[in-house]
């Protein structure tokens, strides 16, 4: 073990800044990062064990005990549950004879849940040894389990691949693109290198001005004007970085997955344009671990771009140097938050930073850094190529251009749609073949749950801003139990725990929702939930805590009747159950669990 770990550490240049990569390699090699491994890594890197453990314990995919030879991570997001996850779970448990959270005694198989893996259009989906399995059924599980018993490698368990680059030799995944609609920007015509060539014929400031004039706003969800961000960063001096946020963790979004698969060149080209504009030489693509199946492919694209001199030194003969490396996450939604993403890329826990300073002032390695979403970088390439006026010609006054939507849930045609900003929800529902709709969850759990009375609202930054996640919730769903409770469980799991309010109130809100679902809620519970949600919003450091109460607050606001039908009009209701509360201790001391009152 020792030699192997040391060679892994060597391969990452013995720097603690690459701790994430070291831990990922150790986990992959030994199926765990044991306490011994932690000691060894600490002493080799010259840091304390606590430093290594801090990082290790933060991420979902690092384990102290070995996972099974086949490690199943079942996605338990809302759409997975909608599409029959519990049947799949039941079949896995039956076949393996263990429960989720356990490993078979022979070490063959471990079963665990994980948050949204970016496959909401083809659920139920799971990762098995980092390989994606989609549209699982009981039959498929039986077949997978028998293959496991036969010792087949996971890659050999299927032979049909998805469309486009999903079938590429370096990818070979069953994942489908499900591109349902192409617009003129990110999924339209694209010729490698054209945008960058044009950018390099302009001055850096001209590039920034072009992006500013295009009114492009960040596609990761927050909608910050991209040109302005670049302008701020360009004014700083010294070394700088460009980072691409490919963490795509918001449940229900998967459009970056499609861009990574079909527009990898374009993403890297966009990063190079940004590098040229702000004066950076290095870029980092932060890719979520769930998309590990794209690793070899992304690296081959980087190699190809270096060959074509679109990356590397003296790019296209214009004296500009820029290169990119891929950094993997290890399972943590909060790492999509830009400052947490930086911390994670530096090998630390993915805890958001206090701002200011903003990343454009002090970002990666304490240097000025521009972070943008995958789709933002793709848009940049086309804006440079065709000009800002062309871009502004699409969309609405305040929201220029096109937007990729990831549409999933109760509809006939889930998938990725490139639309111009400004489409109404009603038109969107028609486009995806959704009927009898109870609600649309706009922008994922951290967004809003929209009732039919508001389906005339527009998908646009000025009305319904979104990173693209749209989950259609049919009339037959139990909105509070199937959706709100699931979202609160998600936030409770994913809070990084730094802020007291986000750490506690997510748990408390989840418990309150459960209380309502179980029929034990009272009217004042609803007022409490709203008040506590507001406190969490006002006192949390990052967007996670600031929006985590939205599932509760937007449904109480928009679907009050559903709550009222479930809560009692009582002044007080206790959940305390004396018999349950004394059971255990009576057993321990050996006395009958009788209570004389």
């Amino acid at each position, binding site marked *: 073990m020792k030699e192997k770990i040391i060679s892994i550490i060597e391969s990452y240049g013995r720097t603690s800044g690459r701790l994430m990569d070291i831990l990922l390699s150790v986990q992959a090699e030994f199926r765990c990062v044991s306490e011994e491994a932690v000691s060894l890594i600490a002493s080799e890197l010259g840091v304390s064990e606590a430093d290594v453990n801090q990082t290790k314990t933060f991420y979902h995919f690092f384990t102290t005990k070995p996972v099974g030879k086949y490690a199943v991570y079942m996605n338990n997001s809302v759409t997975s549950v909608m599409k029959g996850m519990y049947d799949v779970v039941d079949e896995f448990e039956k076949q393996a004879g263990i429960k989720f959270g356990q490993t078979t005694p022979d070490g063959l198989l471990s079963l665990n849940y994980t948050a949204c893996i970016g496959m909401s259009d083809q659920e139920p989906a799971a990762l098995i040894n980092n390989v994606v399995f989609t549209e699982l059924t009981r039959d498929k599980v039986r077949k997978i389990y028998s293959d496991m018993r036969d010792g087949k490698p996971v890659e050999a368990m299927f032979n049909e691949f998805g469309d486009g680059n999903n079938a590429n030799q370096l990818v070979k995944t069953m994942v489908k693109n499900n591109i349902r609609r192409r617009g003129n920007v990110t999924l339209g015509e694209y010729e490698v290198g054209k945008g960058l060539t044009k950018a390099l014929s302009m001055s850096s400031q001209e590039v920034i001005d072009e992006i500013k004039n295009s009114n492009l706003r960040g596609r990761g969800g927050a909608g910050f004007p991209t040109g302005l961000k670049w302008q701020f960063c360009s004014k700083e001096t010294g070394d700088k970085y460009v980072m691409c946020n490919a963490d795509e963790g918001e449940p229900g979004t998967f459009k970056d997955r499609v861009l990574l698969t079909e527009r990898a060149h374009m993403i890297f080209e966009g990063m190079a344009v940004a590098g040229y504009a702000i004066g950076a030489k290095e870029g980092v693509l932060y890719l979520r671990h769930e998309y590990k199946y794209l690793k070899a492919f992304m690296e081959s694209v980087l190699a190809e771009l270096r060959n074509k001199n679109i990356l590397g030194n003296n790019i296209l003969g214009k004296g500009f140097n820029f290169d990119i490396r891929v950094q993997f996450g290890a399972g943590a939604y909060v790492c999509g938050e830009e400052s947490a993403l930086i911390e994670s890329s530096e090998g630390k826990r993915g805890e958001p930073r206090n701002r200011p300073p903003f990343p454009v002032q002090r970002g990666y390695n304490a240097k000025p850094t521009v972070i943008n979403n995958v789709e933002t970088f793709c848009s940049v390439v086309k804006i440079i190529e065709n000009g800002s006026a062309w871009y502004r010609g699409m969309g609405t006054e305040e929201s220029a251009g096109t937007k990729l939507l990831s549409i999933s849930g109760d509809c006939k045609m889930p998938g990725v749609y490139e639309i111009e900003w400004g489409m109404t929800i009603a038109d969107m529902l028609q486009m995806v073949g959704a009927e009898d709709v109870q609600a649309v969850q706009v922008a994922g759990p951290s967004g809003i749950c929209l009732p039919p009375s508001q389906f005339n609202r527009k998908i646009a930054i000025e009305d319904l801003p979104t990173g693209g996640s749209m989950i259609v919730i049919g009339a037959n769903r139990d909105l509070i139990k199937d959706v709100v409770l699931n979202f609160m469980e998600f936030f409770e799991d994913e809070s990084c725990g730094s802020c007291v309010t986000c750490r506690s109130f997510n748990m408390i809100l989840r418990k309150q929702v459960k209380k309502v679902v179980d029929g034990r809620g009272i009217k004042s519970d609803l007022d409490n939930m709203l008040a506590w949600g507001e406190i969490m919003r006002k006192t949390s450091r990052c967007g996670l805590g600031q929006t985590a109460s939205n599932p509760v607050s937007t449904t109480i606001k928009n679907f009050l009747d559903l709550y009222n039908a479930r809560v009692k009009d009582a002044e007080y209701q206790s959940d*305390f159950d004396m018999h*349950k509360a*004394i059971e*255990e*201790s009576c057993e*321990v*001391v050996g*006395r009958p669990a009788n209570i004389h009152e």
Partner: protein
Amino acid sequence: MSKPIIATASLAGCFGCHMSILDIDDRILQLIELVEFNKSPIDDIKTFTKQCDIGIIEGGCCNSENVHVLKDFRKNCKILISLGECAIMGGLPAMRNGIPVKECIEEAYLDGPTVGENKERILPNDEELPIILDKVYPLHEIVKIDYYLPGCPPRADLIWKAVVALATGDELNIPYELVKFD
């Protein structure tokens, strides 16, 4: 109007909150002018002899008897107050909440460094003894609580002001320093 009647109890607490009640110093003389005490460790009345107006409780519930006393207070008092961190949140005793009951009991009676002779490894299980609960509960999870006085212990001035306000019906005016400790 006759004097309001007060009852108090200490459940899973350290009596620090009761000490803080006594910390009102010579105002205790005014207090007995203002109110009458019923069941309370302060006057050693063990059971309720009449319906009370205000119940003040220190400590959370760690055993079946605490629950019993708490419910008795709810029945006999018009207004119930959680006094101090332990009553409001479980406090120090609730530190055991993350530890299985079995481990807690074994640590206390068998394995702890301060356990004396217990060769037969006896665990207290006489039917007369209160039964330990699976965890320590804050009061409001078991009965309705009307007011909360924070602190560990709450400052004597806070208790004084709260009781006077309830007894006289005057508005309660709490300076920031009385409830914020940062």
